[in-house]
Structure formats: structure tokens, C-alpha cells
């Protein structure tokens, strides 16, 4: 409609009717130029150059570019569209002085009430237990050093397409103790430990009987007699106590694989094999030949921080929290989680939300006292002679002043006329 109207005005201008109706020639020319711009079709090149300089997020620009390239529009229509979008974007932004933290807390907390108190399974990998639901969410925001169910998702390099090769790699990774490799019996009359190794398992795990014997010699510092696939071990002194201690010692030796990886499960997902492990050791696993060091992950955020850095930890917090919520069928906007993750990682290390982290490190005494351990905080502050600047919300609510939020954060000054 706009173009047809524009065309009509344009034709009127051409016939100099505008001049006759008391408009100056210069003004008429300007109108003509404007209307010409209206008619001009926007080429993909002009669309791109127009979009590139905009103060909009990359994702919006990209979406806009895709859509605009599909349709034919004039340059003035393009301007209209762009202006409308910038306008909508500016209006959608959070207002200055908005209490985003409280909104995030509400937005995560309310759906959190609907979460199950204990879920203990994993969709897909039925063999491995995973903490999910509320306990997992608490674990994430508390920045626990070790999750209650550490799990790694190991992706493999392109060469690993057949199951045997993948299973061989899994055997390399999984921890093998003496109980995995054979039977351990204690002969009390002879005062010796008999270790009957299973040939099939030894072949499968690619361990020689000699290696096992040597390892026990090195680790337990004890003489080992080898009789075919049987290992006979005697304590140095003849005593029950020492015998039983020796059994425990031998049981704790890792003969193959990574100490912390208790179990490995092989699964096929979308045409590629993925290994799931019980227990995590990100650094060691990433160095393994055959492991894709760019896509392998763990659910231990602390370990990610150590191995991959603070930014990776932030990403891990976001994805772990979102996955936990989504698994429960709760849709929480990612922005709230991002805010939490940002707060947890601002100081260059992962801090928990609670008493020993963000809430406990607030500058204001009253704000800390309002959160937890009221008396302790007030007492310590009194002893030290702390000063509360009353800049936050909580402090001002406590002392009964207007809070500094939204319009309350604006101070007006009057400039008198001279």
C-alpha cells in the first residue's frame, strides 16, 4: 500500500502540481528525491551494509538478514523494519535500576518448588545413576567440590566407528582392581593369600600375569610367588592382622585404567559411540588417545574450572542447571541462570551462592545479617567498628528508608535560573 501511494505522490510531483500548490521548487525536489528512495529496491548488499552497523545482538541481526534476503522490499521499507526492530529491542531491555537478582531468584525458585526431592536415574543410560532434580540444582548453586554422582560423557574421535575398538578403549579407561581380574581367597591355615586370575578377563583387559605380580610387588612391597595364573602372597610376619591388612592393600591397587573411573558404559548415539563413566578424571581422559578433547565433558563443575578455566565453568553451570530444570519439565529463561552463573564466576573462581560465597561476601553488614547468622555478623561488625553505607536494598528496608531501585535510584537536582 505504501509503495502505491508513494508512486502516486511521485507522479503528482513530476507534473509540477506540487509547485502550483504553493510549495517551493526546492521543497518539491526534496520530496521527489525522498519518493525516489521509497521506490528503490533494496539489494542484498544494501541490506547487509545496513544491518552490519546496527547496535543489535548478533543473533537478531542474523535472523533479520535471513528473513530480509527472502523477500523483495524497498529501501524505505527496510528502514522502517530496522527502526521498528531497534525500537522493540530497546523496549524489551531491562530498565536501569531494575532488581534483576530478585527476579532471577523468583524465576528459578518458583518452578523449583515443583521439582522432585529425589530423582535417581538417567534418561537413556539406565545402568548409571545420576542425581537429578532439586538435589542436583542445589549442588550446582552450592558449588560443591564433588557432585554426589560424578559422570563423564566421553566423545570419541572420528576413527572409532566399530564397537570392539570402542570397547577396547573403554577397558583402557575403566579401573581394574584385583577383584575385577580374578578371585581373592585367604587361606588362614597356610597364612597366605591366593589370587586366582581369570584368563579371559586378563586377555580382555590386556594385562599379563607377570604385570599383576610385579605391580603387587611394587605397591605392597611384598614377595609374590607365581604359579601359572595363581599368585601366592604371604605376609612378612605371621600374624592375622598383617594378613588382613595386606588383603586390603592389594584390593586398593589399580592395575589398569584410571583410578577414579569406576565404570564405563558404551552407548551408541546418533551414529557415534559415546562413553559414559561413573567417576570423573577430566584431565587424564582428555589426554587419552582416541578421546575427542574438544567435546568431552564432565558434570563436575569444579573439575571443569581446574582443567578448562573459569569461562568454561560458567558455561558448564548454565548448561547443567538448564538440563536439570528441563529434565523436570520446567522452562526457566536462560537469562536468569546466566545471571546466577555470572555472579558465581565474577571473581575468577567458582563461588557458591550461599553463606560462604556471594551472600556471605556482601559489603553491607546489615545485608549479611539479614541473610544468615545474624548475631555473629552484627557482633563482628560492632567489634571491628564497620560502617554500613546503606547502598543496597536490604539495608534500606531495615532502616526504613526508600530503597534505591528503579525510580528510587534517581536523585534529582534543581538548577536555579540565574
Amino acid at each position: 500500500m505504501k509503495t502505491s501511494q508513494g508512486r502516486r505522490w511521485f507522479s503528482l510531483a513530476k507534473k509540477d502540481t506540487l509547485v502550483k500548490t504553493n510549495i517551493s521548487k526546492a521543497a518539491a525536489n526534496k520530496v521527489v528525491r525522498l519518493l525516489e528512495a521509497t521506490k528503490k529496491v533494496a539489494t542484498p548488499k544494501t541490506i547487509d551494509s545496513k544491518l552490519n552497523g546496527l547496535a543489535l545482538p548478533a543473533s537478531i541481526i542474523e535472523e533479520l538478514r535471513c528473513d530480509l534476503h527472502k523477500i523483495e522490499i524497498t529501501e524505505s521499507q527496510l528502514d522502517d523494519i530496522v527502526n521498528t526492530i531497534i525500537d522493540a529491542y530497546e523496549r524489551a531491555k531491562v530498565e536501569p535500576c531494575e532488581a534483576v537478582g530478585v527476579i532471577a531468584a523468583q524465576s528459578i525458585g518458583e518452578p523449583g518448588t515443583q521439582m522432585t526431592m529425589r530423582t535417581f536415574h538417567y534418561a537413556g543410560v539406565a545402568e548409571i545413576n545420576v542425581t537429578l532434580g532439586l538435589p542436583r540444582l542445589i549442588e550446582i548453586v552450592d558449588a560443591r567440590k564433588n557432585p554426589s554422582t560424578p559422570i563423564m560423557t566421553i566423545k570419541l574421535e572420528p576413527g572409532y566407528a566399530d564397537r570392539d575398538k570402542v570397547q577396547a578403549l573403554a577397558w583402557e579407561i575403566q579401573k581394574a582392581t584385583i577383584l575385577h581380574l580374578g578371585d581373592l581367597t585367604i587361606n588362614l591355615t597356610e597364612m597366605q593369600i591366593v589370587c586366582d586370575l581369570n584368563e579371559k578377563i586378563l586377555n580382555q583387559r590386556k594385562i599379563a600375569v607377570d604385570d599383576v605380580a610385579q605391580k603387587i610387588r611394587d605397591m605392597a612391597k611384598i614377595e609374590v610367588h607365581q604359579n601359572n595364573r595363581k599368585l601366592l602372597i604371604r605376609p612378612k610376619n605371621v600374624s592375622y592382622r598383617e594378613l588382613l591388612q595386606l588383603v586390603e592393600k592389594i584390593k586398593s591397587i589399580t592395575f589398569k585404567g584410571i583410578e577414579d573411573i569406576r565404570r564405563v558404559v558404551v552407548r551408541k548415539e546418533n551414529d557415534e559411540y559415546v562413553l559414559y563413566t561413573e567417576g570423573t578424571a577430566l584431565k587424564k581422559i582428555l589426554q587419552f588417545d582416541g578421546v575427542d578433547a574438544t567435546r568431552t565433558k564432565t558434570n563436575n563443575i569444579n573439575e571443569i574450572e581446574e582443567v578448562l578455566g573459569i569461562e568454561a565453568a560458567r558455561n558448564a553451570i548454565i548448561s547443567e542447571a538448564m538440563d536439570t530444570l528441563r529434565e523436570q519439565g520446567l522452562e526457566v529463561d536462560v537469562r536468569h541462570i546466566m545471571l546466577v552463573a555470572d555472579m558465581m564466576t565474577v571473581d575468577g573462581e567458582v563461588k557458591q551462592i550461599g553463606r560462604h560465597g556471594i551472600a556471605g561476601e556482601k559489603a553491607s553488614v546489615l545485608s549479611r545479617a539479614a541473610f544468615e547468622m545474624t548475631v555473629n555478623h552484627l557482633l563482628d561488625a560492632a567489634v571491628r567498628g564497620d560502617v554500613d553505607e546503606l547502598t543496597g536494598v536490604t539495608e534500606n528496608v531495615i532502616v526504613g528508608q526508600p530503597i534505591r531501585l528503579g525510580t528510587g535510584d534517581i536523585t534529582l537536582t534543581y538548577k536555579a535560573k540565574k
Partner: protein
Amino acid sequence: MKKISVIDHELVPEHIVLSERDVKSLLAKHHISVGELPKIKISDPVIKEIGASAGDVIKIIRNSHTAGKAIVYRLVID
């Protein structure tokens, strides 16, 4: 055993050391002092790998869930 490079991992966004001139214009643009920026430790694996030193400002180009790309800055601390 192979040597791994943490910056290749999909969880790690791009880290770039900012030049002194860029730091000045960044601080002037937002009216802040350098200490007000979020921090990153010098012991951070990524910082070790790109070889930044304490006091440098790192520009991080995140793959944002909402904005596509988001640029943030961190100050390297001891």
C-alpha cells in the same frame, strides 16, 4: 598420551588479550576503573595457554544463548 589444548574445547570461548589503547577506550566508554571488571586468575588454564600476565584485560567472545555473540571483559589477577 597426547598434549591437549584447552582453547579448542567447545566449552571454552575465545579469549583475546586487549591492547593498552583498547583498554583505555573500554574504560572511558563505560566510565569505570579497571578494578571494576570481572576477574580471571592468572592460574586459569586458558590464561596460561594464551600467555597473558597480571593486569592485562582479556576480551572474551562468548557464544551467548540469547544474543548469539556476547563480548565481555575480564581483568587478569594474581
